[in-house]
């Protein structure tokens, strides 16, 4: 990982030195062990702060839509993109929120991000002093003794099923994991959930979302959610209540997920941001599979795609239409 970090720092230093970029968005080590935090580098001397490890979880493309509105038109923004981050960025380009020429993308072929909750649950209070990692393992060093965790077993669900670890668009690529895209499979979790009976599915849907406190972290962490005025905060008209009662919470999540149809790249940022650890991917991933099977469409692969729901074809299937019997 150290090689990748130094390569990254070299690239960013060069970008800044040659004024190709006014600002670079990357990761810095977090204030807590096993965590990283987004960081915005503008000066050359801050470049040393940049890191790359298995905990660089945030989808940095989320900052681009608001940045492009605030910064003067000519500013060039550099960004570090994993596979899914780059697809979110391509989606922003396709939806005209970001211009490709305004962004310099340093891509990383992503080996998969480790889910820190799976590890911290096993710590039971011991304090981690230092974290090291190699291609297979995460090594946690305590004041006395250490623990080894296999990377593959502790990846986030969205990383386990990742089909596009290499960024779909980049200016510079840093090779990390050498693995070709996995076979295209519907997510096993979705397939298994679909087998359940209707009432059971609704009961799980209600149960999971009954813990929601409506903090909107899932929406604010998602690069696709860039609307200036979200339907959830509209007051003329107010579509649904402000309470955290079940019907309001379900209304918000159903409509937000429907807004991701044909746009969600399944990066898992919403599920990671949720403080209540609600398994949101169980409900967002279904449309990702449906969109691939029904329309053979995968969002975020090339900037000259057009959005799924902005196109149609004459022979789209319509078996679901009701017919008079």
């Amino acid at each position, binding site marked *: 990982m150290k090689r990748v970090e130094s390569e990254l720092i070299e690239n960013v230093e060069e970008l800044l030195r040659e004024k190709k970029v006014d600002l670079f968005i990357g990761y810095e080590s*977090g*204030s*807590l*062990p096993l*965590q*990283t*935090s*987004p*960081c*915005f580098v503008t000066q050359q001397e801050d470049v040393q702060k940049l890191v790359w490890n298995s905990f660089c979880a*945030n989808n940095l493309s*989320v*900052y681009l839509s608001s940045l492009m509105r*605030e910064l003067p038109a000519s500013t060039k923004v550099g960004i570090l993109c994993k596979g899914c981050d780059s697809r979110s960025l391509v989606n922003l380009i396709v939806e005209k929120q970001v211009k490709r020429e305004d962004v310099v993308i340093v891509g990383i072929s992503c080996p998969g991000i480790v889910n820190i909750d799976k590890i911290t649950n096993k710590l*039971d*209070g011991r*304090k981690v002093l230092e974290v090291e990692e190699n291609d297979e393992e995460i090594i946690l060093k305590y004041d006395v003794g250490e623990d080894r965790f296999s990377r593959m077993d502790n990846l986030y669900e969205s990383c386990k099923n990742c089909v596009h670890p290499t960024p779909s668009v980049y200016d510079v690529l840093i090779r990390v994991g050498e693995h070709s895209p996995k076979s295209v499979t519907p997510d096993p979790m979705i397939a298994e959930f679909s087998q359940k009976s209707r009432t059971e599915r609704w009961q799980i849907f209600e149960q999971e979302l*009954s*813990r929601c*406190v*409506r*903090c*909107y*972290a899932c*929406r*604010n*962490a998602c690069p696709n959610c860039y609307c200036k005025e979200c339907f959830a*905060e509209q*007051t003329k008209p*107010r579509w649904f*209540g*402000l*309470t*955290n*009662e079940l019907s309001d919470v379900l209304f918000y999540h159903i409509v937000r997920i429907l807004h991701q149809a044909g746009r969600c790249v399944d990066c898992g940022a919403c599920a*990671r*941001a949720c*403080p*209540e*650890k609600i398994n949101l991917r169980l409900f967002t991933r279904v449309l990702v599979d449906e969109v691939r099977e029904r329309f053979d469409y995968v969002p975020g692969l090339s900037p000259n795609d057009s959005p799924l729901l902005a196109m149609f074809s004459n022979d789209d299937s319509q078996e679901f239409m009701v017919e008079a019997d």
Partner: protein
Amino acid sequence: MTKEFVVHKDDFNEFLTLLIKVYTVFGPTGDDGSNGIKRIERPEQFKLHHGTSHFSFKHFFLPQTEKLFSFDLASNKVDAPSEEQGDDKYSILIGLRPCDAKAVELLDQVFIERDPKDIFYAKRRNKTRIVSFACREPRSTCFCGSVGCGPDSEAGADVVIYELKDRYVMKAITGGGDELLNSANIYLNAVSKEDLAEKEKTMIEAKNHLVNVFTSDGLDGKISDFDASYWKRICQKCLGCGICTYFCPTCHCFDIIDEVDGSKGRRIRSWDSCMYPLFTLHASGHNPRPTRKERMRQRIMHKFVYSMEQYGRRFCVGCGRCVTHCPVNLDLRFVIKEIVEAK
């Protein structure tokens, strides 16, 4: 003469059973969700969290959604909730940490001490005794030591329980705490010198666990540069979600709106957050806090500066929940450190 007693660990369940007979007891039951506080009917249900709990105890006194009154549009009649206390049986909220207990005392300043009294909050608060557990092992994100609180703080609690190796030292802080302990006095034993010494030792150990990124005496007057450049840099990675305010035990802002169903309706108040765009949006479209910079600045200034002038108290108890739950790991401790050092 503060009263301290000892309860052996294996008597604790019986001790709790006696309390359950006299009071209605609420506490954490192991479920980590935001509705983690439940009624405790049997002592085994009570599961104390390791360090601070995932959620804050605020929503026991200030629920996320609360009906102020219901009304009937046909008759334009308002029926307010009954004023009297319901059954006058006291209830106990057990399982708080010292920071949570102090947070409740801070909320008391806003909703009870300062006129006009908020009867919804007061109705629950006046009838509830708080039993907190001193911290033996604060989490790595705890910074109560930096804001004038501590793992052994007694503020806001009626009874503080110190966990030792095989026994608990229970200290009654208020008259209510006294009464509470007396109602289960058959399990109370006199406290010995060794107990007190061991209690002191664990508390000192706990304090050494704390990583003080900044110190409270360094704060006064330091966070005052309203137009400093660091505010813009600090908030750059903030996503503007409401996690830090909804999980903070001292955040008490709320919104009031009406909801109608046919001819019946209700006016409710629900949690609100200064980090949300509508919080200060005027009907004319003007917004004194248009971007996340102003909102983050307001959140910090209110807890560390404005509350000192309004209530003479700092409205941060150092529980660290805003640090653990932030999706982008925006650590309040290092933000304060940066502000204090920039002065």
